């Protein structure tokens, strides 16, 4: 019996099902590809339109920003509602790179074009993410008009909204906006002190004024945060208070005040910090020594030399490091300390002389042709031997590339002269 070709054979229901499935899946993927192409094309068209509109409007915005007239005078046509996002984007991008009157002009435009009112309404939204976005945008706009509403939202039940509200107030930077932030330092349970401090530091000198006014009413932890902020901002306005705080009954506050004075770096604080080197609390003395190392002055060298004999190693280390930062006079003081009867102080001086490269230069002078220079270097080496720092010198005596230096050191140390290892 002749076999029938496959196309005329009867097909079963399973076969039909498979065919239908394949057709269905193919159609689905075709549709999907079609949707992707259309949506991508649509996106490209929207982007291209936005780019065109941006190119059309942007020069007008820029001229408005540095000009004196109202925005409409600089624009080729009125702004359409659909262009609000574009306008916002241009002003925010501009605000990222410029400051001063240009930002003020941008802020005025945001108010006049209704952006501020729009986000103030969003700040009352039931959705927390809408409130958070509104707070952020209002902060970027820097509108003082939003201050009251933002302050009210410092008690928002959602932490993310509260943080963005705080940042927005920091951006507005008026005393009305900053005062509630300084008060937030009092409430570490609700506010992260580090975060609030960061915002206040960003606001700069404006926040110092308010912190100074509120300082006496702060609890201890808020006082400590405020002192750290003064130091980070390096505010000269806070110097007088910080000097007074060096006599505060709380040692932690005294230590922080000393550190902040060092960060500010005003050399006229040196005598106050010099007194703090005699503080009964060792960590205040250590911070005072560190702070003195940051001041560009030499009047404190003697007091720092005394601190090299402090019973606490941290004070000694900070004092030695401070002397290292005092230039030539500091170095001379460290060299003189090699004669100190206090072994700790002398050893500290050796370490700092080594770290600052002074010992290397002294060793190089051993080969000097000038008699005085060579004698000075020989004296220093003799002092090191007396301090039993032969470990340091022995290593150099073996490894120094210059033969005459190896020879001189070997004589000082009573070693056999070694040939250079690479020789």
């Amino acid at each position, binding site marked *: 019996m002749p076999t029938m070709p496959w196309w005329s054979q009867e097909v079963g229901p399973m076969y039909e099902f498979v065919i239908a499935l394949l057709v269905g899946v193919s159609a689905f993927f075709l549709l999907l590809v079609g949707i992707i192409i259309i949506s991508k094309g649509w996106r490209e068209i929207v982007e291209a339109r936005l780019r065109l509109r941006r190119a059309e409007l*942007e*020069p007008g915005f*820029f*001229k408005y*920003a*540095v*000009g004196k007239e109202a925005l409409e005078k600089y624009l080729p046509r009125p702004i359409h509602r659909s262009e609000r996002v574009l306008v916002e984007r241009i002003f925010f*991008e*501009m*605000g*990222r*790179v*410029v*400051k*001063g*009157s*240009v*930002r003020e002009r941008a802020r005025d435009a945001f108010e006049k074009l209704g952006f501020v009112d729009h986000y103030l309404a969003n700040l009352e939204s039931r959705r927390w993410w809408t409130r958070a976005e509104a707070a952020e945008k209002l902060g970027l706009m820097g509108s003082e008009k939003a201050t009251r509403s933002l302050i009210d939202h410092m008690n928002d039940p959602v932490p993310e909204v509260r943080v963005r509200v705080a940042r927005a107030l920091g951006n507005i930077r008026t005393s009305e906006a900053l005062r509630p932030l300084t008060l937030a330092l009092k409430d570490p349970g609700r506010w992260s002190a580090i975060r609030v401090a960061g915002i206040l530091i960003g606001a700069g000198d404006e926040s110092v004024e308010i912190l100074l006014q509120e300082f006496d009413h702060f609890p201890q932890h808020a006082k400590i945060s405020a002192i750290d902020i003064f130091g980070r901002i390096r505010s000269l306005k806070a110097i007088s208070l910080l000097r007074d705080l060096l006599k505060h009954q709380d040692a932690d506050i005294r230590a922080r005040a000393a550190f902040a004075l060092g960060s500010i770096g005003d050399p006229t604080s040196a005598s106050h910090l010099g007194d703090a080197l005699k503080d009964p609390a060792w960590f205040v003395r250590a911070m005072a020594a560190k702070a003195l190392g940051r001041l560009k002055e030499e009047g404190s060298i003697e007091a720092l030399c005394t601190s090299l004999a402090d019973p606490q190693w941290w004070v000694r280390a900070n004092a030695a490091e401070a002397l290292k930062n005092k230039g030539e006079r500091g170095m001379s003081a460290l060299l003189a300390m090699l004669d100190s009867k206090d072994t700790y102080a002398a050893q500290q001086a050796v370490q700092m002389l080594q770290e600052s490269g002074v010992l290397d230069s002294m060793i190089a002078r051993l080969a000097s042709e000038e008699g005085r220079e060579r004698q000075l270097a020989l004296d220093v080496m003799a002092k090191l031997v007396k301090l039993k720092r032969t470990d340091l010198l022995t290593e150099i005596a073996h490894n120094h590339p210059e033969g005459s230096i190896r020879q001189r050191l070997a004589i000082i140390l009573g070693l056999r002269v070694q040939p250079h290892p690479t020789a």
Partner: protein
Amino acid sequence: MRQHRIVVADDDPIVTKFLSAVFQDEGFEVSVAEDGEKALKVIKEAKPDLVILDLVMPYHDGFEICQKIKSAGETANVPVIILSMKEREQDALRAFEVGADDYIRKPFNALELVARARKLMGNSRG
């Protein structure tokens, strides 16, 4: 009298567009470059009266470009303003070491920048 020419080299388009609009409005002719390589090319071609340079740019950084401007005979006298996000004292000092005439930090005050540019070009309007 020919217009004063300014070259603005910055990889941030908002800066180049903003400064172009501002300086053109003030009567200057502005050429822009968005990377170090293009900046060198534009400076060579435009023979500018002032260069405003960003420090961080692709191919050549602002220090390198400034050094090249100041060491080439024909551009050695062209004033250079560095406009940078870099806040460190060392960066400003290095900029002056390589010959920059001014160093302005971003965010900058646009009116101040225009005033400084004018001063460097000899107090004349474009």
